[in-house]
């Protein structure tokens, strides 16, 4: 499907163990040039290990990976000049000022802030009023903008971001993704990891990771499509009795899955002949006449939960 495009990243059968912990169990994927690619998963899924191998900071035990056509093990020296990397931990110099950090990162890549200022202008101008402030004294949102500026100042051909939005409030997360969207529009290939499922929709394609494996690899719409059965959103309505609703749905003998999603409960039924009216009359019997039921399109989180559950079921068999 993407053979016409150049691949920025090619990963085949990567394995990485830490002692007895199997962090990556044979991971394979490709990222095309100019894609905004999301690695989605919880802590311990293997996201950071994958990103560290791709940024030449960690050696794989087995398998191969190429970034920009360069082998991550043999070509690490060449590759390091061409990638941008924003690690999960804030790792700029806390006792240098905003401006000093940026100048330093430009200098170690043999360039200047002036030469590449156009790349970061959009992001950096928001923190420029604080350019003499020590990086350690910045707010979380400002640190994030500085770290991104420093990762971009040498004009990388590909950008890796490890959980840039973890622990960041909902408003700042939105702003950060708007920045990434603009970088993507400029043609930069971006690989970003996140534990927030709702951020998947911002990506061109995503890999859903769980316990060192990729459970799904597709566009967000393609991932949602894998869900493969009618999904209903049930809400308690005006009563606001969400917990009672959850308990009632779980108690239904026909329930296949009952998963809370904020103000709604997402529900699937065992019966092929199922109609929402069946559920309505059941909930009425349970004293939840206000409940509202509608069929909805599954999201990425619905699919991941479903994939995780079926994986666990297989294990138990």
């Amino acid at each position, binding site marked *: 499907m993407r053979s016409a495009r150049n691949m920025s990243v090619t990963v085949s059968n990567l394995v990485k163990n830490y002692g007895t912990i199997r962090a990556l169990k044979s991971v394979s994927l490709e990222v095309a040039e100019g894609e905004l690619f999301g690695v989605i*998963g*919880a*802590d*311990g*899924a293997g996201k950071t290990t994958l990103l560290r191998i791709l940024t030449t900071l960690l050696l794989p035990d087995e398998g191969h990976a190429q970034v920009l056509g360069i082998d991550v093990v043999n070509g690490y020296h060449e590759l390091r000049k061409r990638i941008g990397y924003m690690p999960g931990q804030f790792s700029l110099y806390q006792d240098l000022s905003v401006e000093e950090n940026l100048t330093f990162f430009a200098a170690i890549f043999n360039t200047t802030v002036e030469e590449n200022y156009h790349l970061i202008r959009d992001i950096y101008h*928001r923190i420029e009023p604080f350019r003499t402030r020590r990086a350690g004294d910045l*707010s*979380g*949102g*400002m640190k994030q903008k500085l770290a991104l500026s420093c990762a971009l100042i040498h004009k990388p051909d590909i950008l890796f971001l490890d959980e840039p939005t*973890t*622990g*960041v*409030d*909902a*408003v*700042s*997360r*939105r702003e950060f993704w708007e920045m990434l969207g603009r970088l993507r529009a400029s043609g930069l290939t971006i690989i970003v990891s996140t*534990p*927030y*499922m709702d951020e998947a929709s911002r990506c061109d394609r995503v890999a859903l990771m*769980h316990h060192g494996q990729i459970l799904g690899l597709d566009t967000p719409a393609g991932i949602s499509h894998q869900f493969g059965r009618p999904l209903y959103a049930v809400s308690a309505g*005006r009563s*606001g009795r*969400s*917990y009672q609703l959850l308990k009632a749905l779980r108690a239904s003998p026909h329930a296949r899955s009952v*998963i*809370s*999603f*904020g*103000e709604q409960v997402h529900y699937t039924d065992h019966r092929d002949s199922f109609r929402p009216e069946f559920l309505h009359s059941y909930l009425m019997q349970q004293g939840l006449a206000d409940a509202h039921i509608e069929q909805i399109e599954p999201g990425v*989180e619905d699919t*991941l*939960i479903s994939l*995780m*559950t079926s994986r666990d079921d297989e294990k138990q068999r």
Partner: protein
Amino acid sequence: MKNNGNIIEVNELTRKFGDFTAVDQISFEVKRGEIFGFLGANGAGKTTAIRMLTGLLIPTSGQARVAGFDIYTESESIKRNIGYMSQKFSLFNDLTVAENMRFYGGIYGLGNQEIRHKTIELLDRLGLTGVRNRLIADLPLGWKQKLAFSTAVIHDPAIVFLDEPTSGVDPITRRQFWDLMYETADRGTTVFVTTHYMDEAEYCDRVSIMVDGRIDALDSPVGLKETYGARNVDEVFVKLARGGVS
């Protein structure tokens, strides 16, 4: 301050750091047995407020009572009557599950008999009886989170403070964690929780939203959505916090 239905009563509580006012005259009550969501953007003042309510930081001005105790003069009593769990704070990796529970039970002043009894009860409730003698280091993150929560309530506190308890856990564990919180609230322990997952705000009985050191909104999720004409709490949050902290 008289209403006995309230487990937390806060009146014009303020904390300054030099010229900076981190918490600016906030007033609110938390009812006994409710799940109270304490939301706000990064830097809005949540952590400072929680540190005052848990007796770890003296306010600049204002009053507050937590579990009936004054935060200025009775902070030691507060500490004995609350539970606390944060994402960063975890159990001791090189102790077993049972040893961790014994340790925290001891810290909270429970007797040996009581600790043994509570350990059995809590592990049974979590379905984790089989791992009581395993090292914490060997357990999956989701189990650790649930165990950390259980140790935070081992002494049946009047109120438990949870600071981003579900950060980074997988979507199934996140929901199991909320089940634990519902059960805990059903048994009468008040749950005071912070989160960056806006869908979780919908699970709270009431939600407060802090912006720049002040509480700008406090209501049930249904009430907030009506007041702000929003479809969900996420939209309410964005409306209030946008233009606040960058």
